[in-house]
């Protein structure tokens, strides 16, 4: 109804809802809180990657009577973290499957006594042979999970791949790899838990998905839903890293709270958070591609493998999104994607912004430049010849029935970046300079919301109410962790109700108060939850018109007067709606066929990179991001999402390396895990083309994950343009550039003349 309508609040740069609290230091994060009588908890973890626990000894130098100690035997319900597959214990019982696996929990009133006590617990193991890589796992000599080490596999097929090779003018085959990446939210994971037999468990915490934590707590404690309450506190960054991990930490703190009868605070320090919590899945992706002589795609065969770590956690859904994004925004009649996630004895990998898509897009967009080089076609032109258009079908044979404006995005990216002008300039300057510059491009899309039937299964419920004091509240379980949930959902509600932005607030993200509107993941908040909130608001206005005499058009004063009349006659002023799928959505989860996502956000990114051939440093000097994310609900927040995602992805490409040694993260400090600083991030130029999506909140599609997908391949493509060496892996550190340049004495020509 409203996607094209002129709006007062949606689209305006209103102040961030919780902004003043964050700017004055008043915002209350988990470590800023306490409870009366609170003790502090800590975790005793596995020091080996795989083995049987033989003995656990408590050093006599510690007065253990001061401590509360919890083991797996103290778990009243199931010793398992409920997520997708029930394979991950809450506390290791008899065996360990990765380093840092939690085994024991201890609590003490003085947090400074915990560290010594943790190291005074001596655990003896019978080691078993561990598996540390995709290659070791796929050999299946050592089985560490299930029957075959395969956490999940998918097969996606379109057309007839096998008959395409013989008629192809070109077949291009390459392998690409991406590394693990740490979220590095500046606030570490932390919770406070409280238990009483009467009211059950209450958990406050830094987290994304309060109802996920409820589900995990119910399983571990065997409690009904009404005895478990989870409250999100102000959350200092998440990026997927607080999607599933807080469930584990909440169970740990609650076990200690139940045993000692005191509230328990557990807040990790940076070293523990880096060593023990999730990271982005490493990947190995092989592309074999058939093309005709004009560079049109004939067939794509993709083998996509990820390292899932020791337990299944979210590896299946990450693999799903990787599979569905592996063919890029291109038209190809014949496709086969075989995808597998492999178990290893590493800390389980998890959700991280993009959720499999950055890995898949890196491979696809690097591959396009490799193809362009081999065929002698301009990489821009190669992409343009293969772009999806409205009316085409993608790899899952989803019909693109919404507008697809990739050509417009590409044209704008070329103009804004002066792509050809700069390339010509660098071609002139590079031969006489030790600093070689290049331009790289990436085109990609990102599906908004849960995959396939996921949103239907979630069946999200969201609402709005109006308090007797005249405050409108948005009732959702979706959380704010910097991306702007509070602001955009209150904008949407205020706009649709015809009241002021200041009239609307968010109800506390407390499962005792708000309905389950689904997790805050998958770029679903604006499009999916925003739409439900918009519908609930429209429904409330209709109700007030029907039953409380609200006129056909109204002022905010008339709205609140009508709420007062309605309350006097009917009671509570509230309105709830459930998710409704857009028409024509059908998805076959077995064949991986159909409408994979309700909508796609589209983008073309351009990177300018300088490679210093003396120091072997690569630096992103300038960056242009052109995207279509539906309607932009808030111009400042939207640009902030894009810029922040690009900065993280620059780190993914050039700086951030998770160094593993014998199954443990060796660089688990900010001193040696290096993210981009204020001096490393280039100017980032952000442009939106707006095509409102009629089934998204006021026309919005997802935005949060998109910007992490494209920068890494654009940067590595720019390095290829600069020095003529195509690197097929990230992170690409100076030592890698050095090795690549030394081993490529026969430097290939840059992709385009």
């Amino acid at each position: 109804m409203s996607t094209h309508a002129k709006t007062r609040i949606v689209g305006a740069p209103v102040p961030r809802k919780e902004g003043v609290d964050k700017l004055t230091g008043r915002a209350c994060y988990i470590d800023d809180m306490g409870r009366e009588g609170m003790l502090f908890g800590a975790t005793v973890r596995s020091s080996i990657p795989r083995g049987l626990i033989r003995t656990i000894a408590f050093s006599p130098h510690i007065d253990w009577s001061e401590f509360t100690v919890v083991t797996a035997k103290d778990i009243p319900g199931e010793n398992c973290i409920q997520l997708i597959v029930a394979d991950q214990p809450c506390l290791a019982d008899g065996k360990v499957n990765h380093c840092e696996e939690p085994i024991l929990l201890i609590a003490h009133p003085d947090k400074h006594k915990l560290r010594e006590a943790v190291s005074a617990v001596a655990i003896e193991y019978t080691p078993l042979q561990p598996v540390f890589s995709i290659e070791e796992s796929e050999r299946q000599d050592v089985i560490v999970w299930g029957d075959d080490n395969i956490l999940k596999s998918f097969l996606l097929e379109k057309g007839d791949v096998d008959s395409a090779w013989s008629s192809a003018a070109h077949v291009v085959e390459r392998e690409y790899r991406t590394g693990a990446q740490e979220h590095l939210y500046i606030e570490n994971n932390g919770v406070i838990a409280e238990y009483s037999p009467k009211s059950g468990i209450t958990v406050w915490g830094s987290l994304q998905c309060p109802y996920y934590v409820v589900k995990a707590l119910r399983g571990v404690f065997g409690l009904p839903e009404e005895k478990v309450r989870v409250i999100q506190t102000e959350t200092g960054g998440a990026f997927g890293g607080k999607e599933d991990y807080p469930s584990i930490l909440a169970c740990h703190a609650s076990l200690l709270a139940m045993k000692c009868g005191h509230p328990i605070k557990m807040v990790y320090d940076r070293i523990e958070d880096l060593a023990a919590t999730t990271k982005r899945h490493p990947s190995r992706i092989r592309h074999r591609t058939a093309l005709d002589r004009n560079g049109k795609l004939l067939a794509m065969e993709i083998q996509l493998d990820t390292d899932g770590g020791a337990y299944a956690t979210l590896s299946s859904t990450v693999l799903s999104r990787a599979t569905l994004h592996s063919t890029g925004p291109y038209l190809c009649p014949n496709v086969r994607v075989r995808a597998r996630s492999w178990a290893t004895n590493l800390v389980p990998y998890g959700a991280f912004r993009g959720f499999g898509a950055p890995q898949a897009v890196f491979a696809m967009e690097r591959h396009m430049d490799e193809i362009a080089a081999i065929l002698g076609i301009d990489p821009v032109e190669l992409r343009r010849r293969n772009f999806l258009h409205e009316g085409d079908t993608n790899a899952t044979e989803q019909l693109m029935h919404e507008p697809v404006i990739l050509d417009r995005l590409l044209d704008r990216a070329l103009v804004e970046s002066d792509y050809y002008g700069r390339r010509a300039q660098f071609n002139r300057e590079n031969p006489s300079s030790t600093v070689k510059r290049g331009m790289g491009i990436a085109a990609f899309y990102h599906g908004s919301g849960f995959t396939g039937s996921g949103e239907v299964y979630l069946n999200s419920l969201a609402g709005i109410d109006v308090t007797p004091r005249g405050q409108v509240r948005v009732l959702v379980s979706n959380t704010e962790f910097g991306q702007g949930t509070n602001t955009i959902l209150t904008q949407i509600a205020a706009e649709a109700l015809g009241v002021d932005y200041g009239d609307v607030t968010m109800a506390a993200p407390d499962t005792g108060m708000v309905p389950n509107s689904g997790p805050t993941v998958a770029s679903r908040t604006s499009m999916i939850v925003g739409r439900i909130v918009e519908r609930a608001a429209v429904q409330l206005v209709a109700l007030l018109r029907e039953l409380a005499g609200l006129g056909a058009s109204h002022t905010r004063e008339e709205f609140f007067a009508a709420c007062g009349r309605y309350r006097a006659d009917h009671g509570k002023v509230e309105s709830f709606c459930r998710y409704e799928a857009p028409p024509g959505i059908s998805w076959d989860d077995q064949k991986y066929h159909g409408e994979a996502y309700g909508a796609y956000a589209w983008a073309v990114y351009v990177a300018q990179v300088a490679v210093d051939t003396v120091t072997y440093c690569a630096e992103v000097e300038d960056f242009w991001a052109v995207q279509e994310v539906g309607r932009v609900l808030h111009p400042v927040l939207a640009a902030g999402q894009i810029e922040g995602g690009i900065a993280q992805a620059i780190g993914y490409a050039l700086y951030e390396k998770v160094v593993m040694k014998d199954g443990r993260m060796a660089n688990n400090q900010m001193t040696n895990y290096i993210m981009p600083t204020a001096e490393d991030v280039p100017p980032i130029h952000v442009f939106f083309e707006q095509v409102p999506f009629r089934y998204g909140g006021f026309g919005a599609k997802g935005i949060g994950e998109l910007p992490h997908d494209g920068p890494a391949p654009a940067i590595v493509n720019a390095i290829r343009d600069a020095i003529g060496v195509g690197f097929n892996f990230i992170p690409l550190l100076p030592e890698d550039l050095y090795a690549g340049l030394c081993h490529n004495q026969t430097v290939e020509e840059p992709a385009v003349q």
Partner: protein
Amino acid sequence: MNANSKSKSDEGWPAIHLGVNGASRSIQVPPMKRLLDVLREDLHLTGTKEGCGEGECGSCSVRVNGELVNSCLVPVLQVEGADIQTVEGLSLDGKLHALQAAFLQQGGAQCGICTPGMLMAAAQLLENTPHPNLAEIREALAGNLCRCTGFMRIFESVVAAANTNAAPAEEPAVKATRHAR
């Protein structure tokens, strides 16, 4: 209740005197206790955050005698007699500091956890260099890590604050922004 209650045994330590946000304070804590913990636990100023505990992220930045320091690296005995400014001392009389107003308008804060430290680093810069260029801003903020914004909007916020009058801005028309309880 206070975030991380102080130990009962602190009374025996000699008093340390310091000025915090313009007020004289006296505390009895172990002399090697981190300034960060003294601010958060003993003085209940939880606006200053811990991100890494090793001086890399800058979230705990405060100003000591007009110098920017990582309060996680400073034992409290080192600041005996010093004047300390934390984020709580930026906004006085209920009015936002020009930097806070600019961060609010320009989108300089997202998750907010690096924001107090970032504001202190920016305040330090503007005091010494009232009209910094972009390179000076980048250098001044290089010790403060932000994982959300990509820094662009933080730079713009600092430029905007530098361009406003020295007088503190009015608190904008967003009232209590806490969640309705």
